[in-house]
């Protein structure tokens, strides 16, 4: 990354807003995604995905591969469709009545929107961490044991104990909570709650973890811990993260995808996107001219 861009990332106000451009004035009448949306060893392949909320189209013709054991960051201004796209990957949008998804989404080359696919089992394979920490109003132990219990992953109490401990260790929370596993999870601090939610997700042993702005409600120290955690988790999991913080995307991801008004504008190696964006819109966004 060159220095000038780094400066802008650190202080986006430097040249931001000096020449305000509204999103309307930008030309988004383009056709194809710039960069390399495809991967050799893809875990998830999405092909020509369109998402509609009733009559409003939220996602326009997005094709993107998510490689195995990579961290891919989805960035873009508010309302650009990145969260909607993320939620199509584990069919979380099914819970919204008016939402309709078109196109193909393949997990290990199986279409997850086919009739045979059970969304409940899919969500066990593709876990999700939400923007606001949402621990269940149960004990820390029961929060982590929730998934294994409903899926019958363990045969007895001691196996479950081990799985809970292991998940908490992987989420970097065990040392802080080992003396109070039976205290309510809602009593933890915001950052601890979010790591508890990550532990809860890991406990189900998913293949992919979707993270929807997992650190946006946290302070910088808690954020740093979550980011450190993601670096460790990518050994075992494929991670898709939506973030508003470009520094965060630059720190944690190998690839970055830039969304704008429901379209996938550019995909590439993270370094390349932040140092040498190919598309005019990407450049304007990462240099802080809008968004």
């Amino acid at each position, binding site marked *: 990354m060159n220095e000038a861009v780094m400066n802008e990332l650190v202080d986006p106000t430097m040249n931001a807003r000096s020449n305000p451009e509204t999103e309307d004035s930008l030309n988004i009448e383009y056709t194809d995604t710039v960069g390399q949306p495809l991967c050799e060893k893809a875990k998830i392949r999405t092909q020509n995905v369109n998402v509609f909320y009733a009559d409003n189209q939220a996602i326009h013709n997005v094709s993107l591969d998510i490689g195995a054991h990579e961290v891919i960051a989805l960035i873009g201004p508010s309302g650009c469709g990145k969260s909607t796209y993320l939620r199509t990957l*584990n069919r*979380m949008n099914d*819970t919204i*009545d008016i939402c309709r998804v078109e196109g193909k989404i393949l997990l290990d080359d199986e279409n997850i929107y086919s009739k045979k696919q059970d969304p*409940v*089992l*899919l*969500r*066990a*394979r593709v*876990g*999700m961490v*939400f923007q*606001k920490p*949402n*621990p*269940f*109003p*149960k004990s820390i132990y029961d929060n982590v044991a*929730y*998934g294994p219990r*409903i*899926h019958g992953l363990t045969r007895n109490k001691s196996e479950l104990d081990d799985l809970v401990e292991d998940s908490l260790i992987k989420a970097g929370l065990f040392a802080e909570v080992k003396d109070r596993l039976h205290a*309510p999870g*809602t009593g933890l601090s915001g950052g601890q709650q979010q790591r508890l*939610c990550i532990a*809860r*997700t890991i406990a*189900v042993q998913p293949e992919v973890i979707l993270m929807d702005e997992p650190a946006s409600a946290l302070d910088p120290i808690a954020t740093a811990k979550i980011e450190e955690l993601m670096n460790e988790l990518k050994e075992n999991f494929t991670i898709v993260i939506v973030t508003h913080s470009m520094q965060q995307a630059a720190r944690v991801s190998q690839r970055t995808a830039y969304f704008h008004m429901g379209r996938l504008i550019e995909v590439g190696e993270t370094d390349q996107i932040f140092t040498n964006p190919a598309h005019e819109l990407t450049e304007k966004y990462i240099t802080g001219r809008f968004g």
Partner: protein
Amino acid sequence: MKFSALIFLLLLFAAFSYFMARQKITTAYRQHKQKKKILTLPKYFGYVAALCSLLPALLVLFFLQVVEEPYINSEISAYIVESNIDANEDLDLYLNDIKSADTPEKVSALSPEKQQVYQRYHEIETTTNRTISVVVLALSILLAIWGLKKINTDTPARKVFEKIIEGILLLAASIAIMTTVGIVFSVLFESTRFFGEVPILSFMFGTEWSPQTAIRADQVGSSAAFGAVPLFVGTMLISFIALLVSVPLGLMSAIYLSEYASKSIRSVAKPVLEILAGIPTVVYGFFAALTVAPFIRDLGESLGLSVASESALAAGLVMGIMIIPFVSSLSDDVLSAVPQSLREGSLGLGATRSETIIKVLIPAALPGIVGGVLLAASRAIGETMIVVMAAGLAANLTVNPLEAVTTVTVQIVTLLTGDQEFDSAKTLAAFALGLMLFVTTLILNVIALHVVRKYREQYE
């Protein structure tokens, strides 16, 4: 002067002081040319001035009205004694005759002596009324003038107004509380009179209830028995059957409405369900007595069971239907209030909808659900009409739902209807039953509160 006219005049004075005070402050503001600063609005000074003339006058009026009657009574009694009129009847009755003569015909129908007393009574009443009116009006005018004179731009009008509002709200709240306290004490007092005649232990633990006291000693059933156990067992039996019906049905319909139903179904089904609560209980009562009870009896007979034509089961079933809305409406509200993020968290882990509901939503909504059940239970315990019509009056000590039983509330009704001497044990028993019912529901509430505190899963 008539009471209504007096009130009207007081309001008129208050309105007058309002406008005068507002005018005074507006003028003062204009003279000081303080337009740029943000000032207390003139209307607040108006309110303060108006209340200053109105409130004390109303209080004094209320007080005088209360003491007026005893004063007139004592005056007229003194007059009767003074003029040596022979009021050999009860003095109260004598006065009553005179006071009830409100038309000229009735007055002329009185005996000459009474007419004389009536004249005196009329004089006293007129003078007292006039005095009250003059005092109240004078007070109101004086306070209005004093207030208008005192009020100026430095008066903390907004603060004073807020204080007055607070006082009015406090008064409203305390009326409800005082009423409750008053009822409790009156029930408690009458109950102690009852327990003076019937030992408290034989009331609480006696198993026979037959409150008929004979007028003559040689009549049948001359010895009354006040054992409340059959009544409480009957109440509990019917309430239990009702809850057995309403809790599962209500909870499940609440879950359907809040978690599964589409918006359009919900917008129709919820109000319709709540209409159930608006049906008068007497309608449920004859439905229970004329339709459900015979149906159960016939069904029982065809199965070879002997069923009373008035059975606890019939009353309990219908009562259960009646209290469904109390369970479902409250549970629906609390389930809907559980944050969406908890649902998504559970679904995101691969839980099904029903797993999410059982393991996350219901524990989180437990306090509200228990609250709804409790409300339904107290309705069931206090319900009278359905039981009178469908379960009968026979105080059987049984837990067999196919037999006729009776409840505490039904017995209170039968004890107090008809001509009764108010100080007989039979009448006073109603208060004792009421007290026990009150204590029972109180204990239920405390238990439920404890359960909720222990098992609730608190989100946020």
